[in-house]
C-alpha cells in the first residue's frame, strides 16, 4: 500500500482530498464497519442467552450510560426533519457507538466472563478504549496518523475471534 499523505498539510488540491478519501474508504472504513457490527453481534448473542427472562429483549433490563446514549440518539433520529432519512436499525444497539458498547461490556462483566474469560474480557475492553479515538477520527471524516491506522488493523485482525468464542460455547450467533 503506497503512503497517502494528509491533504491538510499541503496547498489545496482536490486530487489530494480525493486520494485521502479513497485511501481511508478503501483500506480502513470497512474494517471499522466490520469491527463495530461484529461487537454488536457478539454482545447481543451473549446477553440474549444470559438474560434468561428477557431473551432478545435484554436491552429492557440494561442499566447505565449506554441506555442514556440510546435515548439521546433516538430523540435526534425521531426529530421531524430526520424523518426523511433512515433509522440506524431496529434494535437499540444500532443507535449507540463503540464507547457505549464498552459500557455494556463493563456493566455486564460477570455475564461475559464465562464466555471469553476475565483476562480476554479485560483485553477487549482496553482494546475498544484504544480504538475509540482512531475510530472517531475516521467517523468524523478527519485523517488519522499511522499509529491510529495500525490500531485499527490490529483490532480488525482479532475481532472475528470473539465470534469463535461464542460458537465454541454453543451460543447461537444472533444478528440484533
Amino acid at each position, binding site marked *: 500500500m503506497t503512503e497517502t499523505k494528509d491533504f491538510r498539510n499541503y496547498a489545496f488540491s482536490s486530487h489530494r482530498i480525493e486520494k485521502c478519501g479513497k485511501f481511508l474508504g478503501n483500506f480502513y472504513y470497512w474494517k471499522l464497519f466490520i469491527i463495530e457490527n461484529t461487537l454488536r453481534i457478539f454482545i447481543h448473542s*451473549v446477553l440474549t442467552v*444470559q438474560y*434468561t427472562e428477557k431473551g432478545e429483549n435484554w436491552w429492557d433490563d440494561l442499566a447505565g450510560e449506554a441506555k442514556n446514549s440510546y435515548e439521546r440518539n433516538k430523540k435526534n433520529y425521531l426529530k421531524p426533519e430526520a424523518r426523511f432519512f433512515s433509522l440506524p436499525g431496529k434494535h437499540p444497539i444500532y443507535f449507540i457507538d463503540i464507547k457505549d458498547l464498552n459500557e455494556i461490556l463493563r456493566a455486564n462483566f460477570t455475564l461475559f466472563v464465562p464466555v471469553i474469560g476475565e483476562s480476554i474480557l479485560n483485553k477487549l475492553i482496553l482494546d475498544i478504549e484504544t480504538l475509540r479515538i482512531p475510530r472517531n477520527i475516521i467517523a468524523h471524516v478527519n485523517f488519522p496518523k499511522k499509529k491510529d491506522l495500525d490500531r485499527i488493523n490490529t483490532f480488525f485482525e482479532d475481532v472475528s475471534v470473539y465470534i469463535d468464542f461464542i460458537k465454541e460455547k454453543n451460543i447461537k450467533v444472533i444478528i440484533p
Partner: protein
Amino acid sequence: MESFERTERLLALILLQNMKESRTEEKVKSLNLVGFTNVEIAELLKINPQVVANYLFKAKKTIK
C-alpha cells in the same frame, strides 16, 4: 479456558452430586439459585446455553 474459579466449580460439583437423581431442569434451577450464569450452567451440565435459558424462563414464568 478456565471459565470460572476452581472453588466455584467444586461447589457446583458437590451440589450436582447431591442432586444425582434430579431432573436436568431441577439442577439448572439450583445452579441458577446459587448464582451461576446460564453459560456456566450449560458448561457444567454439558447442555446448550439456550436450553438453560429456556428452562429458567419456563421456571420463572411458573412462579409468576
